[in-house]
């Protein structure tokens, strides 16, 4: 041991204070995951691009509120629904970019045993990762949509629209929650099945495109939207329309769409339960 090492060895001290193990580990994990994301330039650029539609919508709200001749831009409940529809593309890209490595990287580096050998439950570990991804996704869905809702009365100088459409506040929150929770939970489940974030990204994108393509093919071939339940995005559309009190755009009953989404969430939870372990048991 070097002389410096010997000196520092003397510095090692036992702690007097106790440890705080009251289940805040998930917050520590979430904060760390978000810090790691915000250190990546690509993620920051992606977030900036994802905010461009919000700015455009803000201009639309301002113009509609202050220039009567621009009545074709008038704000309605559909405006907010469409905005969240547009953001689905960014939800997809951010989920793939930010979520694919959340657990896969830990598995590759054997980090699960480091987490789970501490006073942390598997549930807290998953909650931390989930919170990080959901927070990133909320920044491009719930946060800008809510800001637009706040901007509308500020630009209009009255609260008429918001008073008549007060349900939009919980509707935006609820749909954003459904959308980002579904994306985050399914992505985490996929991230737990591989050591490679690239494989996970391809798997997620493949699943999304394949199901959407099958739905598209049935729609064109059979001239019906009854099979929208095949696509998770189709199901989200149905649920979104229901939440925003709009006519569902596909023929699949919203209850079927809800059941499909719940089924996928349960499957994802089962995958996470099986895969998040400190040791890999090969039998």
């Amino acid at each position, binding site marked *: *041991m070097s002389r410096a090492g010997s000196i520092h060895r003397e510095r090692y001290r*036992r702690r007097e204070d106790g440890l705080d193990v009251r289940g805040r580990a998930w917050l520590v994990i979430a904060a760390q995951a978000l810090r790691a994301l915000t250190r990546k330039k690509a993620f920051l650029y992606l977030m900036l691009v994802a905010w461009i539609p919000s700015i455009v919508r803000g201009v639309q709200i301002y113009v509609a509120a202050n220039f009567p001749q621009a009545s074709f831009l008038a704000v309605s409940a559909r405006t907010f629904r469409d905005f969240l529809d547009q953001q689905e593309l960014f939800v997809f890209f951010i989920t793939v970019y930010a979520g694919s490595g959340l657990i896969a990287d830990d598995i590759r*580096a054997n*980090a699960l045993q480091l*987490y789970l*050998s501490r*006073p942390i439950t598997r549930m807290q570990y998953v909650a931390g990762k989930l919170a990080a991804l959901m927070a990133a996704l909320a920044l491009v869905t719930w946060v800008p949509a809510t800001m637009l809702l706040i901007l509308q009365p500020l630009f209009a100088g009255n609260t008429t629209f918001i008073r008549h459409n007060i349900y939009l506040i919980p509707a935006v929150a609820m749909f954003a929650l459904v959308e980002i929770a579904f994306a985050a939970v399914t992505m985490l489940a996929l991230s737990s099945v591989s050591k490679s974030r690239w494989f996970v990204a391809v798997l997620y994108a493949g699943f999304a495109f394949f199901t959407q393509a099958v739905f598209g093919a049935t729609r064109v071939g059979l001239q019906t939207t009854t099979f929208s339940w095949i696509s998770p995005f189709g199901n989200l559309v149905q649920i979104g329309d229901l939440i925003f009190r709009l006519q569902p755009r596909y023929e699949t009953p919203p209850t079927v769409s809800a059941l499909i989404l719940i089924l996928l969430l349960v499957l994802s939870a089962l995958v996470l339960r099986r895969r998040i372990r400190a040791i890999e048991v090969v039998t």
Partner: protein
Amino acid sequence: MADTVAATLENVSVAYGRQWALSEVSAEFPTGAVGLLGPNGAGKSTMLKALLGLLKPNAGTMHVLGLDVETAALEIRARIGYMPENDAHIPGMTAVSFVAYCGELSGLPAADAMQRAHEVLYYVGLGEARYRTVETYSTGMKQRIKLAQALVHDPDLLLLDEPTNGMDPTGREEMLALVRDLAHNKNISLIFSSHVMPDVESVCDTVVVMNRGRVVMRGPIAALKGPSGRMFEVRIKGDQPAFVNELRRRSFDCREADGDVLRVLLPAQADARELFAAASVVHAQVRHLKASLPTLEDVFARAVGDE
């Protein structure tokens, strides 16, 4: 549970599918430095993981630091530092961030965790490299940082799984010096799992020897090494297997050491001339005879041989 006991296992069995990794294991780990010795696949790592509550045993009960592993796993893990056998880190982090993060995960406040991270990194000899990402570390440095993350929250008990694996001789000596210092000067109990007997011997006072999922021997190393009797190194010219059989027929412990050298433990009442007598029976000549001291390797060979 007395403060003199760090961990106990009572009739613990753990199976991976149909394969029993631990079979009705009962053992007591006193406070201080205890070696967990055994060949690869003996069940050492499984035992450590079971003590951490990461593996649920098929049968049996375990207590660590006086707490039941089944009902108080989280409280136990807050007081344990675990250094896993294989390479493990959080990707993309510098050493100091990694260790501080591990401290926070263990329940340290953020500022305290960062301060402790700097301290333990200096302690394990990584002070100058603490701002490098862990991925760029050599094997020896990775072993040290695994020790640092296990120490950051100042545990009462350290579980070290093959801590000198892959280290060069100098690094290995430094790691053993650190572990000795922790056990003997910093009052941290530790269970030192290894298949390298000299490592265990240089750090630990007590040893638990495992083989094929069972505890085959345990106790203070001095007591295990020092049965009444004397150890001899013997080399013969002639039929060595027949000579070994003859020694065993006379109830002498005997095993092969380096090359053609045999290590033979003679009971206290026996005389070294009995070795010449045994050689004479099989028409062999004793070419080399040297008094030796029993080592942990002899203890281990005897324990595994009894299996």
